[in-house]
């Protein structure tokens, strides 16, 4: 036992250095600068928080929409996770990747997709008139509905992936024993499956919650001006009004709120850790989709994916609608605005996106993996909970704060990172590694400790045990984490205020560049680039799922 704890501590040091250097230091730098008096406003801090009802109404809205989004996503996501965990069907990994797509798409592209679907002369409208019905259009839908729908769409895949990966590893023998002893399916679900799933469900829930809490693009773009989250407010105060002091205070309020939730989550998660339940020998006895009941299941999957994908289909339709020729708009990308200083070939954009995504997901997995290994210690629960919550914080720190903090922290010789691609990679891995922790932790915590004990007794060294027991058992969790870290990076999630040089342009940056000017050619170029993003992401996801670790095969 002692041996493993010492190992844990030594291995944990790189995480401490990483967090300290790239998160705590920059954020503190920005806060100190904001409070230096240079950006002070007339009213003092306490007055501001006491008298400004608007700020509290934003806090309230941010909280309850995040709650609602989380609960709705869980309600829709858990049955989906069941389907993906327990059934084998054709194209399963393709479906799973398709569902994750909205996660990486720029919000404005999703919004254009919605418009292309539901507006006058949109896809649905035309299909309806084609089959002889009156036109169909959606107008005047409340912005809040759009916010919730978009949050469900974006976060759905988090629930599916994190929960299903634990679900499919549940030891079937437990369920069999229970049903032999006379338990009906309700009992089995509520007393065996659910308790084993709790950590995974909590993991997914906290990620969805944090994403919805810090929602920026969705609220700005789809919600309309009536709605604002703290993240949006902080952005406005910083970049349009230069009230950095007020922004810093609100950022601290946001971080505190998020920390409380993270801590509660971590405590709950610890409570539900079981020492058994995960099978180290997955019995491949998945139901095949052949009988009539399964056909219904298959049907619902198709419907589900279809609904998730409709906006994307609408994009393709839109390109054809504008430019008349689908292929042409892709060929055009190679010469569109080619004389511009900022012209880059789509190949280079793809290359850059993949490069940043690969490096940053590697760093994320390294940091997140080490952190989860440390957090899986079953001693000093309270301290572990505090650390766990702390490690998850980057997702709750406003993107502007991190961006400007980096600018202040790493702008002096010899470490002047401004304009370097290192910043891009670091910014992406800071958001990416919490996903890795949340995907690995529910698995690593469920590894039966008698496996470790036996291995210890039989003389296995820490490394040997780690390689032959821990890694194979958590491998699928590692892959899920990798996929999310990859997605976060390729979708440029939450990385604002980063300098872009011409040679560092990525696919999303190229999309925004095209959509920043009027004209059909710009719109079709932007949409064509979005479809390139879609294909790159799909292929990458499917390939990542295929990565195998030496030795994993002997378990599965």
């Amino acid at each position: 036992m002692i041996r493993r704890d010492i190992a844990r501590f030594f291995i944990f040091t790189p995480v401490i250095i990483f967090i300290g250097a790239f998160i705590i230091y920059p954020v503190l730098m920005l806060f100190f600068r904001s409070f230096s008096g240079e950006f002070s406003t007339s009213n003092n801090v306490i007055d501001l928080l006491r008298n400004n009802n608007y700020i509290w109404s934003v806090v309230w809205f941010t909280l309850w929409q995040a709650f609602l989004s989380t609960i709705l996503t869980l309600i829709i996501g858990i049955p989906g996770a069941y389907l993906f965990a327990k059934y084998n069907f054709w194209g399963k990994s393709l479906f799973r990747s398709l569902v994750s797509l909205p996660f990486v798409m720029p919000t404005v592209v999703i919004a254009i997709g919605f418009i292309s679907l539901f507006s006058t002369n949109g896809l649905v409208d035309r299909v309806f008139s084609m089959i002889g019905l009156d036109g169909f259009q959606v107008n005047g839908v409340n912005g809040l509905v759009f916010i919730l729908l978009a949050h469900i769409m974006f976060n759905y895949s988090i629930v599916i992936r994190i929960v299903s990966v634990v679900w499919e590893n549940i030891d079937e023998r437990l369920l069999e024993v229970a049903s032999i002893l006379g338990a009906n399916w309700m009992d089995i679900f509520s007393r065996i499956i659910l308790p084993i799933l709790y950590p995974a469900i909590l993991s997914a829930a906290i990620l969805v919650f944090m994403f919805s809490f810090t929602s920026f693009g969705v609220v700005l773009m789809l919600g309309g001006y009536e709605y604002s989250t703290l993240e949006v407010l902080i952005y406005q105060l910083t970049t349009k009004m230069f009230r950095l002091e007020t922004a810093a205070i609100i950022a601290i309020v946001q971080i505190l709120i998020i920390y409380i939730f993270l801590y509660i989550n971590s405590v709950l998660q610890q409570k539900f850790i079981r020492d058994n339940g995960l099978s180290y020998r997955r019995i491949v006895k998945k139901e095949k989709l052949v009988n009539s009941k399964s056909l219904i299941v298959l049907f619902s999957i198709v419907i589900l994916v279809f609904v998730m994908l409709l906006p994307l289909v609408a994009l393709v339709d839109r390109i054809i609608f504008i430019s008349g020729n689908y292929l042409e708009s892709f060929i055009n990308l190679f010469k569109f605005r080619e004389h511009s200083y900022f012209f880059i070939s789509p190949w280079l954009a793809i290359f850059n996106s993949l490069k940043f995504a690969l490096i940053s997901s590697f760093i994320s997995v390294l940091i997140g993996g080490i952190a989860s290994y440390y957090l899986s210690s079953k001693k000093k629960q309270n301290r572990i909970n505090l650390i766990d919550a702390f490690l998850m914080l980057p997702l709750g720190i406003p993107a502007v704060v991190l961006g400007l903090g980096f600018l202040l922290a790493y702008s002096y010789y010899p470490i002047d990172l401004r304009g370097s691609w290192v910043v891009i990679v670091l910014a992406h891995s800071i958001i990416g590694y919490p996903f890795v922790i949340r995907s690995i932790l529910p698995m690593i915590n469920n590894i039966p400790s008698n496996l470790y004990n036996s291995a210890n007794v039989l003389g296995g060294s820490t490394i040997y045990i780690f390689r032959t027991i821990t890694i194979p058992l958590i491998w699928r969790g590692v892959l899920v984490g990798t996929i999310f870290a990859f997605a976060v990076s390729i979708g440029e999630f939450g990385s604002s205020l980063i300098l872009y040089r011409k040679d560092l342009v990525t696919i999303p940056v190229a999309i925004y560049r095209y959509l920043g000017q009027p004209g059909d050619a710009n719109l079709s170029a932007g949409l064509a680039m979005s479809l390139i993003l879609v294909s790159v992401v799909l292929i990458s996801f499917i390939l990542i799922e295929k990565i195998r670790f030496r030795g994993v095969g002997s378990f599965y």
Partner: protein
Amino acid sequence: MIDPVYLIWIMPAEGIMIKFINSNIKNSSGRLSVLVDLCSISQLIKPICITFFTIIFFIGCTNVSDSTLRIITHDSFEINQSVIQQFETDNNVQIEIQKAGDAGEVIVRAILEKGNPSADLLYGIDNTFLGRALDEQLFIAYKSPFLSLVPKSLLIDSSHHVTPVSYGFVMINYDKEYLNNHQLTLPLSLEDLTNEEWKGKLVVENPSTSSPGLTFLLATISYFGVDDEYDYLDFWSDLKDNEVVVKDGWTAAYYTEFSKNGGSIPLVVSYSTSPAAEVYYSEGKYTEPPTGNLDLPGASFLQIEGIGILKGTTKEKLAQKFIDYTLQERFQEDIPLNMWVYPINMKAALPDVFKYANQPKHQVSLDPKLISKNREKWIDNWSKVILNR
């Protein structure tokens, strides 16, 4: 859970062994095993260290060579490669252009890194942010000899910290096809937009997140005034009652709400050059612009964009040369088709398609100092009216 220790009851031999090992560890006499363990940990530490040092190595490699002139600008900056190359060969220097978000993000960046800028020049400071930038003393003054080519009325900064390079107009665009189909005649004044006829038919950008949004707000302030009987807030409150649509930024307003692009709203706050760009980027589909400019009194705000040398640069002379270059025809004539604004040099020829980008007759503007002083207050008041807060 069966602790291995209990094995002693069923398998005595193995059980005793386990008990022995466990007690050894607990009595901390297991130093040897700790040592053995550290050795095995070192196997893991090695790859981790290698990764870390690789990262630090890359960090070290990122310093830019000294022969580079760096320019920081906003996301809308575009210029032809050949124009940049010309300057590079003439002056034997490399140019590196860095994009840093929208106009506001660029300024807040520049303020935070004052004295230690990441670039030598800042391109793209407009009259809505000029006052703040001057207050912060971000720039070194430079009076270019080529300023004589610029109309007097467009010289925004008499102290010459910022040199104007281009100008444009934020104004309302309309969708011709929509107005035809719905038999609507163009409004004649901003006040008309508050009539029943135009209910829900205008989309604007949020001034607290968008540059054209702020500019349009300034236009209404300059036209209606702040203390008049019917001031800008009354106008906005009437607009709100008339169901004006507010979007976070130009891209969302233009590409998701504007009826020309699949939305349902025929009037959008955009630029005076947008109709021309529609023709230019239609790949031959349009010979006449599908959209038009709504030249209403008080609805077209003059936006002047400038360039300045950032304090802390080591290449002041070179930066001055670049400013001169931006004012000359070669650079100026390249501006219209790239950034869709007008060249500030009176001698610069306009491209053919700019015949669809006539400058509005009714132009308004405000003193940059006045804007800088009141920007927060005006945005706040606007939000209070629109958001009911």
